[in-house]
């Protein structure tokens, strides 16, 4: 990828970030997406900013030290339990607790 192509890519991301900032008050989903994009933007910028072989090698070593994230459902399961407990028709024994 040429440097111009990278600059265009980053400009596109920056535009998306600006657009998101403008509509950030639109709802929680936008707010959730925003940090994801920002994180990607920083990651790309980090590698784009490397030019020499040593810098590239360092970027790879840093990457190898960072485990890829694994999704888990712990929060979802806890939220479901809470939502069920909050129901008006929740079982009495659950309410007593």
């Amino acid at each position: 990828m040429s440097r111009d192509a990278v600059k265009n890519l980053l400009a596109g991301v920056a535009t998306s970030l600006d657009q998101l900032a403008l509509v950030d008050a639109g709802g929680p989903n936008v707010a959730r997406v925003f940090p994801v994009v920002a994180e990607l933007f920083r990651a790309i910028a980090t590698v784009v900013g490397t030019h020499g072989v040593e810098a590239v090698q360092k970027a790879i070593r840093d990457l190898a030290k960072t485990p890829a994230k694994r999704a888990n459902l712990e929060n979802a399961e806890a939220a479901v339990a809470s939502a069920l407990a909050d129901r008006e028709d929740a079982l009495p024994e659950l309410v007593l607790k």
Partner: protein
Amino acid sequence: MHVRPQFSPPAVLMPILVGIAVALASALSSGCGASALQTHARIAVMLHGANDAAVRAIETGCEHRAVAAARDPDVSYDEASANAQRVLARCQRVVDAQHAFSAAYEVYVAQLLAVVDDDNHQPSAFTRLRALLAGLAPLYADLARVAADLGIHLPTVPFAPVGAP
């Protein structure tokens, strides 16, 4: 019960994903050496970000859908509980697919690191690197498919160029 899809990051991620497409195409034509290493480094970082985005989309989307099922006022407690558990069970399949992708991605990065540590930059190492990258495509496609079945739309990663001759 109908749950309206609400988390769809692809639109805002599109500029990044176009970049991935370009990088993947570049990787195919790359041979060995520093330039190829740099291209693979870019791909690895971008895939790392795409994986992060996928994890967030899966966790957020699953929680939203499971809680909506649990709160559904039109059904009884027992039915709501069963529906929520069904959502979580479907989410587990998405999680399993994501774990398969992230594990394969880590193998790719490990091979990338092996290339870095080998000053000779053996051509066979780059061949293996490209094969591992190509192997990520069906895993991501499977992940995106099972997530989409649940109404969670993951960023499109255009791996197609990897399979080209």
